[in-house]
């Protein structure tokens, strides 16, 4: 079993504020976590259990019996309340403390105390799923382990901290393996980025104009694992927009994901590419997309966006969603009413796509019927009820590639912070005006996805993501 943990940046900040004080002593907290089970990793095979930070509970000073730079003894009043809450909410328990010295391994004291606490959790709450313990150091390192119900410890393979910045913690992060391919990129962006990118699993949803550009860029900068999801085949009318596709691919009726996979694999960078020929919301995709760290949304269907919008919140997977708006003027064929590209970063606590008005629910309903009841859909079209079918929308490879670049740059920015003004959750690029806007949005009162926080980091629930699949 591969164990990993995703932490919200604001949770890490709250933990640090409590744990790390000028007196340099150890302190303790409990983090309750949602969880997900991935039955088969599409790159390596084998299962993964993933945990998501949900509730931070700090152990107050009056419960600390004694503490120093190298130990802490505390009474378990808060701890017992926390594990009761964990049972009620079906969450995993994660013990948290700090190492003021910066030591990057569990101490002898930790190894003696933690098994007792973990045993207390299993004895009280039952169940056979793992609980966790993590350590945060003064200089921002985090490491941890998962405890099975046999009270055996397994190192967490990856700890992700996601928010306005992305930080990854894993063994081998500090290794310096020079790779000629990335030498000049490293001169600009540093060496640390290369290891992080190689560790990541990224899904690119949609292998059309924006998706082929995005996936190609992600591969070229050194992302280690890519998952391509699209159920469409290459057509000759696509060739001027798809990176990597040929007329032979179109004539052979090849799937876009297969063509893109071969194109990326053929470049020799070493990206391991897997593909799914499905609509992204299909239950056949759930397991694979849950196993990703980050998603790029390059789909133009509304039901796909609805799916990704929830995914980002339930599974704490930052999602870079893109769109292109090129609107011809119906009264003047030489004029365009709009020429824009959009990037929206979906992740709590940002306003979601529904609240931003970027999803039209009626079109999602029609797309569902077209997928699952094609005869009924034709009937509706005949009765002129359907609004979604329009002439093919205008598209230009330079615009789609530009917005893909905007998205991948913002992704890099979250890891290394090269933008002087910090991270950008929403970028509207006006190709015709040569300027960017950063549209804000108001969350709708009662939006279960972004206004309320109940779904954030909830992980697996029934039905999947509390919606119809």
């Amino acid at each position, binding site marked *: 079993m591969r164990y990993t943990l995703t932490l919200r940046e604001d949770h890490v900040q709250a933990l640090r504020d409590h744990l790390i004080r000028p007196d340099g002593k150890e302190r303790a907290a409990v983090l309750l976590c949602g969880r997900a089970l991935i039955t088969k990793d599409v790159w390596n095979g084998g299962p993964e259990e993933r945990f998501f930070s949900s509730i931070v509970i700090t152990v107050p000073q009056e419960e600390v019996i004694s503490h120093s730079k190298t130990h802490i003894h505390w009474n378990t009043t808060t701890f017992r309340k926390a594990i009761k809450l964990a049972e009620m909410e079906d969450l995993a328990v994660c013990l948290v403390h700090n190492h003021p010295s910066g030591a990057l391994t569990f101490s002898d004291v930790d190894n003696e105390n933690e098994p007792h606490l973990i045993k207390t959790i299993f004895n009280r709450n039952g169940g056979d799923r793992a609980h966790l313990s993590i350590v945060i150091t003064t200089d921002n390192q985090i490491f941890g382990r998962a405890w099975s119900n046999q009270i055996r410890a397994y190192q967490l393979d990856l700890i992700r901290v996601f928010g306005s910045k992305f930080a990854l913690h894993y063994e081998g992060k500090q290794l310096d393996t020079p790779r000629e391919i990335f030498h000049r990129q490293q001169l600009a962006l540093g060496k640390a980025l290369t290891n992080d990118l190689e560790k990541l699993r990224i899904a690119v949803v949609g292998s059309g104009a924006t998706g082929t550009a995005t996936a190609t860029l992600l591969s070229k900068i050194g992302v280690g694992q890519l998952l391509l999801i699209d159920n469409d085949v290459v057509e000759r009318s696509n060739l001027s927009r798809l990176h990597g596709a040929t007329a032979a691919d179109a004539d052979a009726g090849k799937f876009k994901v297969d063509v893109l996979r071969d194109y990326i694999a053929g470049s020799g960078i070493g990206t391991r590419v897997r593909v799914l020929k499905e609509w992204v919301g299909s239950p056949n995709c759930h397991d694979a997309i849950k196993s990703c760290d980050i998603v790029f949304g390059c789909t133009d269907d509304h039901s796909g966006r*609805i799916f990704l919008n929830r995914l980002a919140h339930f599974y704490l997977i930052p999602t870079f969603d893109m769109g292109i708006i090129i609107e011809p003027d119906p009264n003047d064929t030489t004029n365009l009413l709009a020429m824009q590209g959009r990037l929206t970063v979906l992740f709590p606590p940002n306003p979601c796509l529904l609240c931003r008005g970027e999803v039209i629910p009626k079109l999602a309903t029609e797309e569902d019927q077209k997928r699952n*009841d094609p005869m009924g859909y034709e009937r509706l079209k005949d009765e002129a009820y359907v609004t979604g079918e329009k002439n093919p929308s205008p598209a230009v490879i330079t615009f789609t590639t530009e917005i893909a670049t905007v998205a991948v740059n913002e992704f890099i920015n979250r890891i290394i912070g090269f933008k002087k003004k910090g991270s950008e959750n929403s970028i509207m690029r006006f190709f015709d005006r040569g300027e960017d806007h950063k549209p804000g949005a108001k969350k709708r009162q009662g939006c279960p996805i972004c206004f309320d926080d109940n779904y954030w980091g909830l992980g697996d629930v029934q039905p999947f993501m509390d919606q119809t699949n």
Partner: protein
Amino acid sequence: MDSFLPKRDQEYLKMKGLQYSEVRNANRNALIINDYPLPKGKFNADFTTLLIFIPQGYNDAHPDMFYCNPRIAFAGGQNCPAQTEGIVPFNNIQWQQWSRHLNTGNDWRPGIDGIESYLQKVNQAFRTA
């Protein structure tokens, strides 16, 4: 079979004591409610079996139309309400299609509305037929 409805809808249907079943057939999810009450005396029956197709992505996406079995006509005659001529087969039953559609943005609050609010629209369609 596990429910395909969001938790809040499951709780609502149970709370109302409605006799319902969830049917998956030919890629489609349908909520079927038995003995659903109609306005008294208005139609040739006071109860119907009501079918609502639940799209993928519901309740961000919304249902479209609803269906009744057997066919509902006005009391004392053969005349059916307007826009109910369509017949759709599902689960080996012929369903009368009530072509009633939502206006996006006004009638459906994605993620917030659910079966409770959709049934209000169904009831309104019966009242105003």
